[in-house]
């Protein structure tokens, strides 16, 4: 792998130049406690230290709502509305979110290729950024705290800038023109500093070890009392799934025009926490109660993604941090598996 170094000052200049390639999105502080990926206007507004964004990065490749195609009912024709090939650059993506995007790829590219997602992904540039965990983070026990694929560049914080790992050909092409100008060679001190950062980061996680056997305990303890107790608190608002970086469910709807001759088919994010998610013809519902729906998310998120060899949950902490009812996903999982630090 190729490694280069960039100073903080030059990073701003690099971001400025990225804006010329495409639309640049990066973490911004949007309120006292929340961050979000926003289009970069002033590069000085970019936040290099943040825990998690309120909206997951998947939305840049798989928007909350999109028109898939329009149709003409008289000609019985449809006209696909494929995304434009404009470049989207995401700067500041944490390792958990990068792995989450790879779990998305496993479904939307590998399993059933989705032309809308695939096209945006091909026109996307992902630049990773190192981070320090808070008490909601548990990417380490999910084994996704350090990524080796899924990014074009990855910025590791140093006291005087960043050590950059180059992950793809696209990444090389971003660095090449500015080598010697913005990017310099890595010296042993930088490596030492990166090592210190990683050591500090590792010690900061509130959960240690790994949760490799969790998914088996999830299956073995399907009737754990936690589900009853915690689903009682649940508001069924869907925040956990909508902020999740690896949730994929969507619904489609046809919206006809007033004259009934044309219309559009829209796709929008759904949530397994909503009643209609499991509703099928004949008024049958696969997940009739709130507890059924609550249960579903715990099983789904902890199931195995063979493409990443991890669970679909990447331990970003969003579902807990953004839960209005303060339901603690991490603690609940630890309770089921019998790990120390859970509720029981």
């Amino acid at each position, binding site marked *: 792998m190729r490694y280069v170094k960039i100073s903080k000052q030059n990073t701003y200049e690099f971001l400025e130049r990225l804006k010329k390639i495409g639309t640049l999105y990066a973490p911004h502080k949007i*309120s006292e406690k929340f961050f979000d990926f926003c289009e970069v206007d002033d590069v000085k507004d970019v936040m290099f230290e943040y825990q998690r964004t*309120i*909206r997951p990065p998947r939305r840049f490749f798989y928007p909350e709502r999109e028109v898939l195609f329009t149709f003409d009912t008289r000609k019985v024709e449809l006209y696909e509305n494929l995304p434009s090939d404009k470049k989207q650059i995401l700067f500041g993506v944490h390792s958990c979110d990068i792995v989450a995007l790879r779990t998305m790829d496993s479904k939307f590219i590998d399993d059933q290729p989705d032309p809308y997602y695939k096209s945006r992904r091909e026109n996307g540039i992902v630049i990773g950024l190192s981070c320090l965990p808070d008490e909601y983070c548990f990417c380490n026990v999910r084994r996704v705290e350090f990524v080796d694929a899924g990014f074009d560049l990855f910025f590791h914080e140093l006291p005087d800038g960043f050590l950059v790992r180059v992950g793809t050909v696209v990444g090389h092409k971003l660095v090449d023109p500015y080598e010697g100008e913005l990017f310099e060679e890595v010296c042993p001190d930088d490596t030492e500093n990166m090592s210190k950062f990683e050591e500090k980061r590792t010690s900061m996680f509130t959960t240690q070890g790994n949760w490799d056997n969790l998914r088996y305990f999830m299956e073995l303890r399907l009737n754990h009392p936690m589900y009853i107790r915690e689903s009682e608190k649940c508001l069924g608002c869907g925040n956990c799934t909508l902020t999740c970086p690896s949730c994929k469910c969507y619904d489609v709807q046809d919206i*006809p025009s007033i004259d009934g001759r044309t*219309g559009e088919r829209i796709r929008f994010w759904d949530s397994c926490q909503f*009643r209609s998610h499991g509703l099928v013809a004949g008024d049958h519902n696969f997940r009739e109660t709130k507890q059924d729906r609550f249960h579903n998310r715990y099983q789904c998120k902890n199931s195995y993604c063979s493409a990443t060899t991890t669970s679909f949950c990447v331990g970003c902490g969003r579902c807990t941090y953004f839960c*209005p009812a303060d339901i603690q996903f991490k603690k609940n999982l630890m309770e089921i598996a019998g790990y120390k630090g859970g509720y029981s």
Partner: protein
Amino acid sequence: MAIIDGCDGECQPRVGVYALTSCYGCQLKLATVQKIMEIANAVSFESFYMLSSASKHPADVDVAFVEGSVSTEKDLEELYEIRKHSRILVALGACSVNGGVQSWAEGEMTHEELHAKVYGTGKIGMKGLQATPISKHVEVDYYLPGCPPEEDEIMYFISAFLFGTFPEPKDYPVCSECRLAGNPCILIERGEPCLGPVTTAGCKARCITFNVPCIGCRGPVPHDTAWFDSLAMTFKNKGISKDQVRERFRIFGAHNPNLEPMLKKIYGGTD
């Protein structure tokens, strides 16, 4: 009903727009949607006083939109007549769907007490009733909530009827739209009693986008999925009293049968 079946605009569906006790804001919204001229070409408005004085009341229609709550005996008689003359009946707006703000006294005060509080000993020229949603009196086919309803939903309802299908109800809360809008959560960040988690989606979380907590104008999420108990528990943990919670829930949700039992479950029988 569907105009696409070789009809070519000759067999226009007949539509009626009616108001019971209300502010007329819902039909004003309907009358001022951007594509009102297209709608007026596609349907025949048999009754819509805001648009035409040639309206009949009631008229035989395929679809009736009824705004307002039943607040007088006259409202009730009119509603029965409308139902008799309409194939499909849509409750239009917060008052019609949930009783609206005027029904806050449900279960708190008798109609006589309420009358005395508002009018004293004064007389009014009609027989008043406790304000109720229209579904308490007649069969309602579809609900189009909002105070007033949203333009895109009005368009969706009308185009779905014209297409010969039916509008799909939203059974998820404002909270979800708020997250998708990228708003910071007022409930988490400031501990304010936002009703987003129990209120029917569709407004794209407009109030919260303007930094104002939701007061639930679109009414509780249908199909018994408005979890007043869970939200009351969340509010209780933030130190909000039963009275405050109750008052807020009741602004637009006083008629929901789950409200009182669910509040009691969290706060107990006493206030």
